[in-house]
């Protein structure tokens, strides 16, 4: 219990139940949103407040004594709306009206008007209380909302790529759009009210998949499902389905939103693509097998034969005197040169050791062997944890070979680095040099393939990877490519080589 200070009586201490006039006047002056005034029994303005002045534009002096029909539009006056409102108020005690009214400057505002008939103790009509609210802003907002909702509804209605519709809480269709009709074949009349299980193949219905999807959506908010669905004519399409549970403010389930997309074409395209990839992989395999066979033939026959001939020519040259010795010696040298060229051919046809050692080791060997000839410091950075399957390894090796040929021919580099790192389900390879750098993008334009760009890119894209070449900011060129390296495939290791 606190004692009241005698100098400041608490507001609650006034027990009359009537706020003092002063407070009422304050209230009236500060109410900005409601024009509150009185009319006499004939409809003439008797009082005016600040909000009335603000909303309608008249000062008290201007308007008091004027008939309130001044506020109405000519067309409302023509149908006697002011009088009708007063009569209704008299008859029913009050009337509420909403409509356009006119300000003093002739501009219009949307008004909500309540007119209350005021009677004294002897049931004598003394006038009317009138409360007018300027609803223009709110009306505009409501209209905008309505229009936006309408536009959205039309959008949903007219979308044909997606079936967008609603289910009630038990799974019965309650709305339908053009896309749903296009994809599933039912018209709105045909499907409304039916359970959405009709879209599922029999085996899915038997497995309880429709119910399961709804339960998951209820539990987790939404569920995404992919699988076969039925059209009205019984044909199947491959559907991607998202079901969203719709809850109201009180967390009561009101139904489900369902968006279905026909993925049949895309699925087939993907399958065709993978068929194409399989074919290309087969082609790459066949090509590599063929190259390997040629390499073996050259290695086992041509090189042996020519090396033997070379040895015999040199031997003969040692046993003869000039000028035959010199001529034979020269022939022997030429044969040896040819053997060396054949050896390089074999190396290009079939990277030595790629079947037997790791990709990184094969690349290191290749770099050590070729790099030594052109005086470039070479490094292989291997961050791979697992070896890519042989086909991927051969593709990576081949592209590296081509990139290194470019470095040797064009880059004038002092160092080259090959970096192998795992990325996603494949291998990212970078061939980085510190040479003069390509003049991109002109060097990447279609045209004569003097950088082997097309071949490198096609090799990568053939197996479903990507390839790119760019000038490095710090100088030089980087060739970067990603090759998928599926781990599930059984590795096909070549025999002893």
């Amino acid at each position: 219990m606190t004692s009241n200070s005698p100098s400041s009586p608490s507001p609650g201490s006034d027990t009359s139940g009537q706020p003092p006039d002063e407070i009422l006047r304050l209230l009236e002056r500060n109410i900005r949103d409601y024009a509150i005034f009185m009319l006499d029994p004939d409809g003439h303005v008797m009082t005016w407040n600040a909000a009335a002045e603000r909303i309608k534009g008249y000062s008290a002096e201007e308007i008091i004594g004027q008939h309130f029909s001044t506020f109405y539009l000519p067309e409302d006056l023509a149908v006697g709306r002011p009088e009708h409102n007063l009569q209704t108020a008299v008859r029913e005690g009050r009337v509420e009206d909403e409509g356009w009214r006119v300000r003093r400057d002739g501009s219009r505002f949307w008004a909500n008007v309540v007119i209350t008939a005021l009677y004294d103790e002897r049931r004598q009509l003394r006038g009317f209380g009138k409360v007018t609210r300027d609803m223009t802003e709110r009306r505009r907002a409501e209209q905008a909302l309505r229009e936006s909702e309408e536009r959205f509804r039309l959008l949903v209605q007219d979308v044909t790529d997606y079936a967008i519709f609603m289910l009630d809480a038990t799974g019965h269709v309650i709305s339908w759009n053009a896309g749903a009709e296009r994809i599933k074949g039912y018209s709105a009349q045909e499907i409304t009210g039916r359970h959405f299980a009709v879209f599922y193949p029999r085996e899915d219905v038997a497995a309880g998949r429709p119910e399961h999807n709804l339960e998951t959506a209820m539990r987790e908010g939404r569920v995404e499902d992919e699988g076969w669905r039925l059209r009205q004519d019984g044909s199947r399409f491959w559907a991607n389905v998202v079901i969203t549970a719709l809850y109201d403010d009180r967390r009561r389930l009101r139904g489900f939103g369902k968006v279905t997309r026909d993925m049949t074409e895309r699925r087939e395209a993907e399958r065709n693509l993978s068929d194409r990839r399989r074919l290309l992989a087969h082609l790459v395999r066949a090509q590599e097998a063929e190259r390997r066979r040629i390499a073996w033939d050259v290695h086992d026959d041509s090189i042996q034969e020519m090396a033997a001939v070379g040895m015999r020519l040199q031997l003969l040259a040692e046993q003869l005197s000039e000028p035959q010795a010199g001529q034979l010696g020269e022939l022997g040298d030429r044969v040896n040169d040819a053997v060396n060229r054949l050896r390089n051919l074999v190396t290009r046809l079939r990277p030595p050791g790629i079947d037997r050692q790791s990709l990184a080791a094969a690349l290191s060997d290749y770099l050590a062997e070729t790099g030594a000839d052109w005086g470039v410091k070479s490094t292989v950075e291997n961050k791979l944890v697992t070896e890519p399957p042989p086909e991927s390894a051969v593709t990576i090796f081949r592209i590296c070979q081509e990139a290194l040929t470019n470095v040797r021919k064009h880059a004038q580099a002092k160092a080259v680095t090959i970096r192998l790192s795992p990325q996603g389900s494949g291998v990212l390879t970078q061939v980085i040099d510190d040479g003069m750098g390509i003049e991109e993008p002109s060097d990447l334009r279609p045209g004569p393939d003097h950088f082997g760009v097309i071949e490198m890119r096609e090799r990568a894209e053939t197996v479903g990877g990507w390839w790119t070449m760019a000038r490095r900011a710090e100088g030089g060129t980087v060739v970067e490519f990603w090759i998928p390296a599926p781990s599930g495939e059984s590795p096909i290791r070549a025999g002893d080589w």
Partner: protein
Amino acid sequence: MTAAAPPLTVLICDDDARIREALRDVINAQPDLTVVALAADADQAVALAARQHPDVAIIDVRMPGGGAATAREVRDQSPDTRILAFSAHHDNGAIREMEQAGALDYVVKGAPIRDIVSAVRRVGSAESPDDPADQ
């Protein structure tokens, strides 16, 4: 090279007869070298090495039975025989395997014959190689 020293004995092991015979003639043309045996595969090479104990065995990197395995077995049978690897192409992986099997050097087919014979002399006059298992 002193005339009094006995020639280095050489075993040639290559599955290609053309190479085998040309190499034999090249080596035999050198007064300080002599070919004592020719082998066409691993089994022959091992048997001949066991019987002849040549100073040098020239072994083709790629041959039936495998160059490295052949080198290893030859050294088992004839520990003082030094191995020279002979190869038709640069396959560093195969060359490493030959080194691990005890080969002291290698030459490529198509090298000038003076390089080949000097490699034979170099290997033949080298210290007896360590047992590769100790490396």
